[in-house]
């Protein structure tokens, strides 16, 4: 096998994994701060895609610029869900949390089907089919743009958590919500802000992938599934773990597509996940470690 093939597979893997990372960062942040695993998380990505699609087709702005719409919209969605739904199941047994959020998943996915219809929307831009050739390998332009968005947003999130007062308060609530409340942090407010950020990041992932992913009501399901695997692999609540876990699973998928078959590439990702669970049931990193 040529070096160029390996390089190409690695690059494809990182490009896939970057999107998994961004979706997973939102999911693991929500778990870290609010202590809920949201099984409707993939549906937030789907809603982000629809927001971008409709903004693009109504205003004609470049799909990437629609981030200024999709992120605030999804922030509001996430905050509302926290205030009016998740609030009631904080601290409930995992079974309750799983099935309430599964119920939300049913509602969002099928509500989208009801409102937007089953048609597959494809968004075409000037760069949808372009690729950049770098010596031995080719990088698809829309995937590269998605990857860059992922990096920028992840860095911004880490900066926000480590250097703003609100971010520090969020980290404090993540480490110990009772003590955080004792020292005067309004934890309820922190919870809905965290849920909003979680949904906004995931909505942004939806915007990022729209140039190469068809928009349908079920578009979020696969990404949701990969995000659950990713956050467990990287230890629930650990942001760095989610980023690295996403990249690992993206690479595994890319190698799987190359060496197993195009339709069963994820076998390798899931296999790695199971092996890690057998050896380190707590995930690759420490759970809920600070940023």
């Amino acid at each position, binding site marked *: 096998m040529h070096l160029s093939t390996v390089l190409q597979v690695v690059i494809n893997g990182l490009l896939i994994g970057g999107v998994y990372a961004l979706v997973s960062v939102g999911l693991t942040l929500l778990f870290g701060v609010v202590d809920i695993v949201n099984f409707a998380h993939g549906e937030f990505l789907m809603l982000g895609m629809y927001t971008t699609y409709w903004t693009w087709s109504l205003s004609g702005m470049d799909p990437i610029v629609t981030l200024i719409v999709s992120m605030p919209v999804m922030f509001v969605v996430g905050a509302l869900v926290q205030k009016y739904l998740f609030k009631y199941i904080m601290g409930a047994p995992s079974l309750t949390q799983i099935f309430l959020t599964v119920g939300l998943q049913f*509602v969002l996915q099928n509500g989208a*089907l009801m409102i937007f219809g089953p048609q597959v929307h494809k968004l075409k831009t000037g760069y949808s089919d372009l690729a950049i050739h770098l010596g031995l390998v080719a990088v698809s332009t829309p995937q590269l743009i998605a990857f860059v968005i992922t990096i920028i947003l992840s860095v911004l999130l880490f900066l926000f958590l480590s250097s703003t007062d609100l971010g520090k308060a969020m980290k404090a609530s993540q480490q110990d919500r009772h003590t955080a409340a004792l020292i005067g942090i309004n934890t309820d407010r922190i919870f809905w802000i965290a849920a909003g950020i979680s949904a906004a990041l995931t909505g942004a992932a939806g915007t990022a992938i729209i140039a190469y992913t068809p928009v349908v009501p079920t578009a979020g399901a696969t990404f949701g599934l990969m995000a659950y695997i990713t956050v467990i692999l990287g230890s629930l609540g650990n942001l760095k773990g989610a980023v690295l876990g996403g990249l690992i699973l993206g690479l595994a998928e890319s190698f799987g597509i190359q060496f197993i078959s195009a339709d069963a590439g994820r076998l390798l990702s899931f296999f790695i996940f199971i092996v890690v669970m057998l050896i380190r049931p707590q995930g690759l990193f420490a759970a809920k470690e600070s940023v």
Partner: protein
Amino acid sequence: MDNVKLESEKAMTALPLAAPPNKDSSLAVINPRVYMPMIGLAVLALLPFIVNNDYFLNILNLVLLFASVGIAWNLLGGYARQVSLGHGIFFGIGAYVSTLLQINWNISPWVGMIAGGIVAVAVGFIIGLGVFRLRGHYFAISTIAFSTIVMLLFVKFYKITGGAQGLSVPLKNSFLMLQFNGKLPYYYVFLVMMLAMIFLARAIERSRLGYYMVAMGQDEQAAKAIGINIPRVKHTALAISAFCTAIVGTLYVQYMYFVEPAGIFSVTMSVEFALVSIVGGLGTVFGPVLGAFIMKPVVTLTNDYLGNVLPGLNYTIYGFILILVIILRPNGLIGIFSVSYEYLLTRLPGYGTDGKGGKES
């Protein structure tokens, strides 16, 4: 079954908590506690003639299938609180094993369902080794990972499994091949199966194993501390649950005539098994039955009558019911149901002829 019975008798002597069997001679047919279940059974037996319509009969058949698989899931997910989102694996194995045996060797599904059950138990054992060390979200998500792996393997090894296109059951209309003309005979086969599942669940609920499962589900550390062999209880519960799920899987494919990996191993399928128990009542014998009788008709009827106008309305309603039940009645709807049933009993002639007015179980 024999084992279960023995266990159950042991439990009655060992655990005074177990409800003693009502062998009172005064417990005669005139008591509503006796004749109401009989009337219920008679209604179920005559229901196809009351509705007398293929469309509703089909819904009833699906209700019975999902009630049965719900009971099977409930053994592990409800009593033992090991929330599996991968039971589609066992369901699919039941469907695939019996179908493959028919296609390749012309073996009857009556035999195939047992073979499927055994394969499901073996696969379940391997999966259990992996997931039983995990708790909560980690456990649930790992079971999803396993069902995705199984689905991808079925797609990958298409020469054996038929791949993504799926398999069709060869048409051979005969009782020996578990195939019937029309939907009516299926109704009775499914009804018998559901009753068998109910009796099995009841027997397990009152057995030593059942108490172990419930104790472990409530507090694993405490259960371990009083000497319960946790891995063994988990594996036994999974084996029984997987076997029963696979049997229903065979019946399902004999009714639908078709199986494909993307459908049967999907998370949605596994979630549906769990939902009938959650809506009805976790860790109760009749919870999954009630859940199936509520959820399946709601989904099918809204889809058939409003699906053209509003596609997706059925599962949106489904999701709303689930959210409302979890927030308002976290123990499921069986609570309301059994309270009304108890009240109804007190109003019926012959109430109290067994010399006691209180609750039985």
